[in-house]
């Protein structure tokens, strides 16, 4: 009795799945670093909505934690086996994933890197991403313009992502320094600049706890830091707590990148001076459209002119616009924020 009903149920489920797959035809996969970070949650939201609209069967995968490479490899293998037409991926390990990506492309899938370029960037068919260097440049230029003459003897604390120096972190860091007017060493890594205005670099893991700790470490080096670059808004919130603990929260300019809703709210409250906003929802929905176009006509999306990836845009959000630096208001930032 039990066995029979189980068999019946299984048969029914298989039939249902078959019907489902037949109805849609085109399959696509979204593989993110984690499914807990609001950034990726928003990405998934964008992809799911667009897939529903275009009638694409979307499967989503995510690593357990940021840096979980194995799960992403498994996900790619699953997608190939599943006969999907394309994969959207934000890679945890941008160079190690390349061999799996090649397998997928050899099997005839379109692979688009979202948010994080692969290493090398042409390992994917296309990259839909924020120009992270530009994002950094905007906040650097804003900080320099806001300080005015004082920029010449600023004391800068750099709160980076992690010691392994992933590309995203390097691009934002180097962009900020360039925008601020500091000579870069090797633009491929941070921490090799010799400008005395930089007090030091420390790593935050991109969260509040790490942001506070890193800020404290830099303050121990030099308590008079007055400009703080942060890799993202949670790290900025942590840095602010460290500054508040010693009563210096009002003398320091904190800048950041991301444009998440709590981050934009922090710009409104004056915790963060300015932040560069990126658009994960757009990346994902454009990605799904590209897969649909590829499945229909075999077209591969072209990069933005002058860049080796498709730029999904970035905007500086601040309540105190600086001359010569284009920005949007906090209200516009709130309307377009994620997470």
């Amino acid at each position, binding site marked *: 009795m039990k066995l029979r009903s189980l068999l019946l149920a299984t048969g029914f489920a298989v039939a249902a799945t078959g019907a489902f797959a037949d109805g849609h035809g085109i399959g696509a996969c979204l593989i993110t670093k984690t499914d*807990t970070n609001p950034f990726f949650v928003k990405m998934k939201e964008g992809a799911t909505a667009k897939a529903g609209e275009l009638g694409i069967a979307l499967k989503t995968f995510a690593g357990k934690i940021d840096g979980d490479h194995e799960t992403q490899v498994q996900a790619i293998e699953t997608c190939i086996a599943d006969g999907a037409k394309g994969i959207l991926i934000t890679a945890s390990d941008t160079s190690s994933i390349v061999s799996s990506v090649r397998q997928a492309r050899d099997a005839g899938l379109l692979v688009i890197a979202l948010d994080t370029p692969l290493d090398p960037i042409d390992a994917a068919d296309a990259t839909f991403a924020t120009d992270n260097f530009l994002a950094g440049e905007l906040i650097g230029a804003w900080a320099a313009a806001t300080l005015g003459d004082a920029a010449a003897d600023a004391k800068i604390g750099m709160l980076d992502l992690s010691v392994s120096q992933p590309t995203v972190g390097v691009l934002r860091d180097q962009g900020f320094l360039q925008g601020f007017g500091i000579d870069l060493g090797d633009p491929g890594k941070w921490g090799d600049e010799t400008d005395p205005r930089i007090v030091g670099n420390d790593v935050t893991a991109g969260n509040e*706890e790490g942001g506070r700790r890193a800020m404290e470490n830099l*303050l*121990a*080096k030099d308590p008079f830091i007055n400009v703080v670059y942060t890799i993202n808004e949670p790290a900025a919130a942590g840095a602010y707590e460290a500054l508040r603990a010693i009563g210096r929260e009002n003398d320091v300019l904190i800048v950041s990148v991301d444009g998440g809703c709590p981050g934009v*709210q922090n710009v409104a409250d004056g915790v963060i001076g300015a932040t560069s906003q990126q658009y994960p929802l757009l990346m994902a929905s454009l990605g799904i459209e590209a897969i649909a176009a590829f499945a229909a006509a075999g077209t591969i999306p072209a990069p933005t002119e002058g860049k080796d990836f498709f730029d999904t845009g970035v905007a500086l959000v601040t309540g105190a616009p600086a001359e010569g630096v284009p920005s949007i208001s906090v209200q516009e930032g709130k309307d377009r924020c994620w997470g």
Partner: protein
Amino acid sequence: MADRQDTKEGFEDALKSAPETIAAFEDRRTGIVHRIQHTLHTTPALVPLIVLLISIAVFGVLKSSTFFTPFALTLILQQVQIVGILAAAQSLVILTAGIDLSVGAIMVLSSVVMGQFTFRYGIPAPISIACGLACGTLCGFINGWLVAKVKLPPFIVTLGMWQIILATNFLYSANETIRSQDIEANAPFLQFFGTTFEIGGARLTIGVVFMLLLMLVLAYVLRHTAWGRHVYAVGDDPDAAALSGVEVSRVLISVYMLSGLICAFAGWALIGRIGSVSPTSGQLGNIDSITAVVIGGISLFGGRGSIMGTLFGALVVGVFTLGLRLLGADAQWTYLLIGVLIIGAVAVDQWIRKVSV
């Protein structure tokens, strides 16, 4: 009848010629090395204390201008407070020859419960905090019940619970951060542990004081109460403990529940430290706390070590982290040296265990 009386008298006579000293191991080994080994065996917190003092001295000499300031020295306390509180919970479990991989997860879930109960349901902060503390204790109870009653290995139980609790945390919170500014405006009591006060240029927080008091109270309880001795007895040999009348499973469950409660307090302290309620923090709490416990000289085989050692162990990690950063070393060097310390600490532990006195 007469015989028995004779025998009795006969025994007493014989006793007079017997040696009067109590049975004891004869210790033939002397010399400085052995004496050190013996001292370390009786006072297990000594090794981490020595390492701590040496590392403070070394960094003090190398970087005296910034390291020997009240700011830097109290900063170390602030930076280790969370790991220190978690390590206190971890110590209790490890003393019973167990391990708790879920400490960080319990901490985060408890802090999320405190925050979300306040902001999502509008419950007054003190009641939400009580709910958060109850949540931590409940997680601990589940761990303890599975270990003591279902007889599953602690490693497996807490490995599973770690995943379960973290997933619950993300599902429940939707990974939404509650911002520091909102907490400050609406429920400042959540940030109670972050309240700072100054003593002679040194800036301390309630969280730091809580960590220190917690260590002292636990040190007293473990050493001077029946429950504390039972914890050691269960860790040393559960069968022997059971035979001497210790209710092993009750002790185990109480240890895991207390550990869960302490983790929940760590969650409250975490809100004070980072200002906000962030579901992504504390992911490495289990590894960091085990590191502090091991460097603190508590034996992973259970039944040996002292909670003060854990405090010193946590401080050693803090001193290394800040000291190396002030010297401008790459952060990887910190991890490398902490790895060396862990292995060194266990090697020293093995060496001390060879003492038979």
